[in-house]
């Protein structure tokens, strides 16, 4: 198991290095002139040149990247070119916002997709048809549109929940929950739809297998067969979909944070990319890659726990 873990961690670090290098190269290729953006639209060419020199943008990109990398491996991600805040401190402030909506969305998706998928597979009939139809609609509607609809109805029209803003968990747990409910639900709907379909299909497949018939013939209760044997065998494919959905939720959070005016990593990533704020973009890239690598590692470990044969691969 230790070798398995070391291999996965090493692969994650290689992925992090490759993606960070690619992101840095792409930032220099986008053409976003950070010096001009900072200096403002009325700045003269002399002012822009001075800013460019101050930021080191007049040096070859490989030199800029080398400097960033040597600082980054020591945990120093520099300061944002816009606003001058420390990138690390900025991410510490923004990460809880993004993680709140992504993790809540994932939890919501996990629970609801499991309940709906299993119910549809076991009961079949009208319930199955309703779950399938709802899943198709839920999957087809983009999360940003869902966010706009929820915001306009539940927040603006009915005033049940806040339309914008984030309250930290430490300040007020109830206000935190209110502030993340609509973004998390907006994010979760697509994931629920996709995962519920996968759970349904997997459970139906397992229910048809010979060993289930054998278990039933031995007189085990339906409940025990379902929860002890069927779900454990049906879980790995659903887990794969769920891990992919997590990555999709992280991407979706970028738009959802904009719609709900949340000061998270996603909205920072959009603004920083448009402005060409390389230190902040690189900080966000590292943060996101680490999250995705960590989640994949957890999924791999869960696979290993569910199926020991996986560990030797």
């Amino acid at each position: 198991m230790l070798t398995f873990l070391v291999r996965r961690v090493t692969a994650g670090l290689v992925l992090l290095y490759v993606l960070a290098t690619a992101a840095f190269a792409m930032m220099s290729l986008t053409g976003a002139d950070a010096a001009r953006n900072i200096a403002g639209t009325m700045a003269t060419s002399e002012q822009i040149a001075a800013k460019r020199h101050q930021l080191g943008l007049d040096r070859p990109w490989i030199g800029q990247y080398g400097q960033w990398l040597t600082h980054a491996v020591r945990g120093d991600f520099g300061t944002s070119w816009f606003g001058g805040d420390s990138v690390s401190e900025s991410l510490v402030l923004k990460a809880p916002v993004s993680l709140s909506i992504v993790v809540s969305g994932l939890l919501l998706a996990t629970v609801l997709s499991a309940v709906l998928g299993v119910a549809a597979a076991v009961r079949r009939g009208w319930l199955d048809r309703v779950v399938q139809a709802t899943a198709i609609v839920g999957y087809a509607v983009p999360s940003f549109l869902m966010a706009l609809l929820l915001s306009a109805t539940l927040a603006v029209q009915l005033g049940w929940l806040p339309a914008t803003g984030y309250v930290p968990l430490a300040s007020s747990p109830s206000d935190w929950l209110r502030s993340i409910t609509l973004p998390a639900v907006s994010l979760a709907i697509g994931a629920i739809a996709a995962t519920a379909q996968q759970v349904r299909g997997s459970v139906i497949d397992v229910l048809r297998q010979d060993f289930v018939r054998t278990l039933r013939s031995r007189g085990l209760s339906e409940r025990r067969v379902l929860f002890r044997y069927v779900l454990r065998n049906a879980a790995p494919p659903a887990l794969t979909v769920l891990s992919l959905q997590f990555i999709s939720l992280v991407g979706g959070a970028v738009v959802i944070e904009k719609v709900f005016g949340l000061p998270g990593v996603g909205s920072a990533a959009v603004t920083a990319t448009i402005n060409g704020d390389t230190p902040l973009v690189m900080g966000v890239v590292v943060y996101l890659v680490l999250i995705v690598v960590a989640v994949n590692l957890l999924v791999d470990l869960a696979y290993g726990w569910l199926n020991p044969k996986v560990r030797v691969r």
Partner: protein
Amino acid sequence: MAGAALTLVAVSACGRSGATASATGDDTLTLSIGNAHTGWDLASAALGDNIQYYEPVFDSLVRLDPEARPHPNLATSWSYDRDRTALTMRLRKDVRFTDGTALDATAVRKSLLHTKEGTNEAAGKLRAIDSVEVVNPRTVVLHLSAPDPQLVANLGDPSGMIASPGDLTAKGGPVGSGPYVLDKAATTNGSTYAFTRNPDYWNPKAYPFDKIVIKNVSDPTARLNALLSGQVDWARITPQTARYAKGHGLGVRAHADSVEGLYIWDRTGRTVPALGKVKVRQALNHAFDRKTIVEKLNLGYATATSQLATAGSTWYEKSLESNYAYDPAKARRLLAEAGYPHGFTVTMPDVSSVAPGQQVVMVQALEDIGIKVKVDKIPFTRLFTALQSGEYPMSWFKLQSGQPWDFIQSELTRGAAWNPAKDFDPKLNRMIDKAQRARGGAQTAAFRAINSYLQDNAFNAPWDVLDAVQGNSKRIKVTPRAFVSAVPISNMAPAG
């Protein structure tokens, strides 16, 4: 950034009721700003909408009224010398920064020179200052390299805000002598900035709210939703959402902001020789149906015009308002007279991500008079750089034109940011030089002559003056200030 910021078009979500009560209490004013904060160091200060970030903590040398005329503030009086290259300012007594340091001439000198050394918009407005002389603790003289007709008014914005000499770079947060202090405990950098009253502020009546909260919300739909649900009291909204906001109990105000139209960057004909000919540029001015653009594209939140000056500015001439009527036949005739009976081909940047309607109208109007347009796909992040470097001979654009000297500095002088061709028109330069050194009525006449000259020579093909549209809750009253998109916080008060 803010000066000519291009704003993305927002599409409203649907809804029914609009709560107007403040979510944060009667003595709190909550604003939502689309622009990200650029830090507390005034050397990095941007203008436009960003002004609202700085106003609570830093007081300015002069205060501007709704018509943007300067009035005493930290400076109680001021006067120029004969050459208008030395501006003497008398300073208010008994003003202290929030770190306890007294505001005196030395502090003013250090702060102004620090801001001037910066690389953002506030610094750019202090370009004419050569040195700052401390005559005595209450008197300071700003020595200029050449007369700057707009300098005193610019000292009413972040350019003229004064930071404590103890922390000019604001490493530990802003230290000013403004009406409020930053409440660090309630502030989250990058998203929410909270301010509580500065108990020692000399003019508390100018700021009736006990607390100010500024939320940075970049998405226009999110800003509108925050307004509609009563989470904020004021925010910039879009023409597309204005009617909806009004119908749901919000106050909506609009004031002249930026001049929109076809900007001709290559007036010398360096890359497209046709554009070097006045008749061609005049033809371009006759190509656009300005009234329809105002009504259909901008939903009435604009004023059709064919001059570059906005109403209310000192160089505005009503008689220039409606020249260059929409007349495609005349445009084709002018093109033929200039030697281009079959038009010409021009490559323009794709602006459909920020002005999709304008792009369609512009291309159609140009093709109607025989000009073939090749639309070049370009990422929005490169647009400003490409235009300023003269990569495109002309394009749709909008820029704040404000007062004449600001316009000249940003669009006409050789080093101007929005004069990519660096074209040199000796006659125009003489006119600018004359206006710069003139005074009073003679100066106004000189600026108006420049406005007229720009129109006669068709420097650009303006369509309209776009409005800055804002929504506010009914619990506050708002008075916009001319020539700036944002409303100063001192121009907001409880409605009662």
